[in-house]
């Protein structure tokens, strides 16, 4: 087989090149230390001794995602929004009418019915503990989006309607998540307008010239300011964004063609 010969030569070539590079020391020291910027982030991710520099979240990745580089994440959320809007634009004019379908066998359906509440519980816990342990809004949203695949494949597309999730409702919940993100972004400014204390957009904890800070402890339970609320809002936005996508993908092709009025091609 020619295919396997090419594959073997690629793997052997990569190994030989790696051996030669190591023998010659061509890449210099590799994998022995991180750069200074990484140490700066790691030192200040949870450091009550420097309150004006820290993000007060023990999870370094979450504190970078929603505090140190928060504006990056905000605009990446906008890119995500635009991609789903574009998908909706292709399907404009198609009503999400309930479509009869068979789905899979009874055993698969019962097992799936047990799995779905567990999946929801896991996703919520990933979102709610994102500031403390590995996890967060994006991870939880991707975990919950698996439910929409299960619904579409195991129960057929009509199950969305039976569960009371219409396309319009999914879009509303998705937009609610995005508005919640915007609310957290503008909350410090609103606080500033009411009380006259200086505060900045997306501010999480105290700064040198601003005493504003989100609550770090609620009833003795440690939360870490904006990352917690951003994670929950992003969870809502990402998971229902994917619900929208999989609802559109699971529509039957003949129904879509009929409603789009496109009968060319076939």
């Amino acid at each position, binding site marked *: 087989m020619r295919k396997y010969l090419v594959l073997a030569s690629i793997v052997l070539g990569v190994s030989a090149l790696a051996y030669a590079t190591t023998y010659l020391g061509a890449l210099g020291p590799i994998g022995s230390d991180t750069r200074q910027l990484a140490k700066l982030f790691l030192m200040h991710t949870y450091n009550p001794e420097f309150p004006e520099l820290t993000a007060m979240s023990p999870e370094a990745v979450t504190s970078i995602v929603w505090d140190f580089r928060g504006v990056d994440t905000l605009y990446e959320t906008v890119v995500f929004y635009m991609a789903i809007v574009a998908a909706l634009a292709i399907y404009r004019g198609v009503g999400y009418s309930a479509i009869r379908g068979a789905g899979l066998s009874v055993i698969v359906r019962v097992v799936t019915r047990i799995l779905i509440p567990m999946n929801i519980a896991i996703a919520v816990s990933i979102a709610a503990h994102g500031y403390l342990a590995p996890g967060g809004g994006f991870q939880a949203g991707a975990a919950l989006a*698996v439910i929409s695949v299960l619904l*579409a494949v195991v129960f057929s597309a009509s199950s969305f309607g039976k569960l009371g999730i219409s396309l319009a409702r999914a879009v509303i919940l998705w937009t609610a998540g995005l508005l919640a993100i915007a609310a957290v972004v503008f909350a410090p400014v609103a606080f500033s307008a009411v009380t006259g204390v200086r505060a900045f957009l997306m501010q999480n904890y105290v700064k040198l010239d601003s005493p504003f800070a989100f609550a770090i402890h609620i009833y003795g339970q440690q939360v870490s300011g904006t990352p917690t609320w951003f994670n929950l809002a992003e969870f809502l936005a990402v998971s229902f964004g994917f619900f929208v996508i999989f609802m559109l993908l699971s529509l039957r092709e003949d129904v879509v063609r009929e409603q789009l009025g496109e009968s060319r091609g076939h």
Partner: protein
Amino acid sequence: MDPTLVPLAFFSVAGLVFAYLAVVEKDLVKAVIFSAIQSSTYTAVLYLLRAPDTVLVYLPVAVGLYPAALLFLIGKTERGDGE
């Protein structure tokens, strides 16, 4: 020696093998399955690179959502990569 480096190299080479098989496969359904196996090896690579956050987002995305969406696409269009 760091004991995680041997599985790290092994899984990344395995990812290369399955990526190649996915790219040259004529049957698109088999290509999606090879691509999912390649994603599983990359999940192991990410775990060994000490990135638990990225594992949590990569696992459902690359092993669950991509294959599902691509299988939807193949089911609605054509299955062969015409040569």
